[in-house]
């Protein structure tokens, strides 16, 4: 069930690469079909992005390659610094929530951001190399994350790692093996186990199934859907694949050239897209 208050509210998220000039914003975007400023050459990876994520909901972000989807997710996870914007959190989980409430967490120190990330977020990257240390064991990867979230007892951590790997359908017998030996689908499952280890309030998924075989993709999606329902975790799903969006999300935002061109209920986006770009996206996905 959706509850009225969002757990995360972001406004005007903006990220640019380059010096920037007065024309950057008005000369880029879907109307021009580009995200690079013709005056100063700056790339506007995303600009003016507003979004709210409610408890337990699955929100999708869809758009072509380079539209700025990953940039949004990475700013929310504090992997990259935003140039502009406000992010407010109301997770009800962090002890420091009082300090967090009504604050722009983008402005926190890197220590503060790390605390928030460890307490309430989990992320799965498209590229498992970003999310996992390939040379330490699968169990060790999860234990490392648990340590950051404040766990101390080795036995407990091992038990929880085993439980999570089991949940994500990674054979426990392979817990002590390094993920470098695993298949792509298995690596993604270890990443998912790791992302869920601290019982996050917000799960961020960036192209989790891209690059996997179709049948493996389907199984990973099944798993995500199952876990999402079981754990009631609010989830942001970023994908260029409308099939993934259709299967996992209730609401969807469509991005192009660094801007949100349309947002709505997922079935509405798919059956009655309003923006020319969304119409193109939907019709090319169906044929």
């Amino acid at each position, binding site marked *: *069930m*959706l509850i*009225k208050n969002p757990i995360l509210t972001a406004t005007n998220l903006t990220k640019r690469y380059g010096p920037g000039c007065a024309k950057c914003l008005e000369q880029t975007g879907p109307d021009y079909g580009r995200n690079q400023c013709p005056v100063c050459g700056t790339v506007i990876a995303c600009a003016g992005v507003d979004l*709210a994520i*409610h408890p337990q*909901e699955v929100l999708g972000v869809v758009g072509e390659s380079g539209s700025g989807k990953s940039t949004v997710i990475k700013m929310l996870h504090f992997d990259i610094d935003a140039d502009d914007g406000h992010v407010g959190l109301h997770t009800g989980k962090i002890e420091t929530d009082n300090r967090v409430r009504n604050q722009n967490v983008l402005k926190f120190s890197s220590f503060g951001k790390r605390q928030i990330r460890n307490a309430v977020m989990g992320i799965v990257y498209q590229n498992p190399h970003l999310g996992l240390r390939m040379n330490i064991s699968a169990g060790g990867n999860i234990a490392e994350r648990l340590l950051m979230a404040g766990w101390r007892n080795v036995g407990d951590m091992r038990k929880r790692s085993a439980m999570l790997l089991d949940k994500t359908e990674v054979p426990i017998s392979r817990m002590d093996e390094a993920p470098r030996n695993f298949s792509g689908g298995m690596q993604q499952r270890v990443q998912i186990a790791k992302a869920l280890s601290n019982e996050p309030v917000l799960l961020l998924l960036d192209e989790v199934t891209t690059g996997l075989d179709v049948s493996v993709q*389907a199984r990973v999606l*099944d798993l995500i*859907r199952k876990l999402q*329902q079981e754990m009631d975790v609010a989830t942001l799903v970023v994908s260029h694949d409308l099939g993934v969006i259709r299967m996992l999300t*209730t*609401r969807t935002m469509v991005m192009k050239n660094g801007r949100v061109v349309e*947002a*709505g*209920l997922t*079935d*509405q986006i798919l*059956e*009655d897209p*309003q*923006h*020319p770009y969304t*119409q*193109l996206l939907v*019709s090319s996905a169906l044929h």
Partner: protein
Amino acid sequence: MLRVNNLSKTFTIHNLGAKEISGFRPVSFEVATGKTLALSGPSGTGKSSIIKCLYRTYLATSGSIEYTMANGETVNLVKLPDTEMVRLRQREIGYVTQFLRVLPRVSATEIVAGPLIGTGVSYDDAIQRATVLLRRLRIPDELLDAYPVTFSGGEQQRINIARAIIWKPRLLLLDEPTASLDKGSIEIVIELLNELRQQGTTMVMIFHDPDVMHALSDSIYLTQTIQEEECCECNR
């Protein structure tokens, strides 16, 4: 409970040079709480599109849909914020068509129990209720735990109907959910929907079969053919 004023829908197809296609002529109707209304009219008059506008799968172009919620507050479904619409879909408004959106590797009982889970009903209880309902719809016991991907069209439709009625929505939108059912199954569906009516569910429905329509509806709204110049190839 539901008041539709001058609702209209035009699709703008940008890739065809912003071509405009009319979905249906402006419609106005009312449905009182606990009453049922059937939409009836020739094919192509936009019956399904009207229902999709009510569920917000389509965005209406003009007009309003005033809906009085369980808490007594009246909202306009055309303008309601997305998250509020999601809430209404989870708590009050159900929608069922002839097509089951089959989820891979989810059993028949789990699909049907789905809408109950998260509303305070325990998992076991939800499965139990789904089982009872599916048995009433004559789904053989050996199919209850199977995945509906492999089911026949008629079996899938019964799963779909069970999923739509198990949580007793306040407002139920039906778009030909019995299209490929045999007579026996249709009678059971009519019986189940009439029970829901007695319990106070309001319905807006499309049924091609006049017998089914008359068995279920308190009143009928006739949809009209779109005029020549507005006419289109789209046959939604």
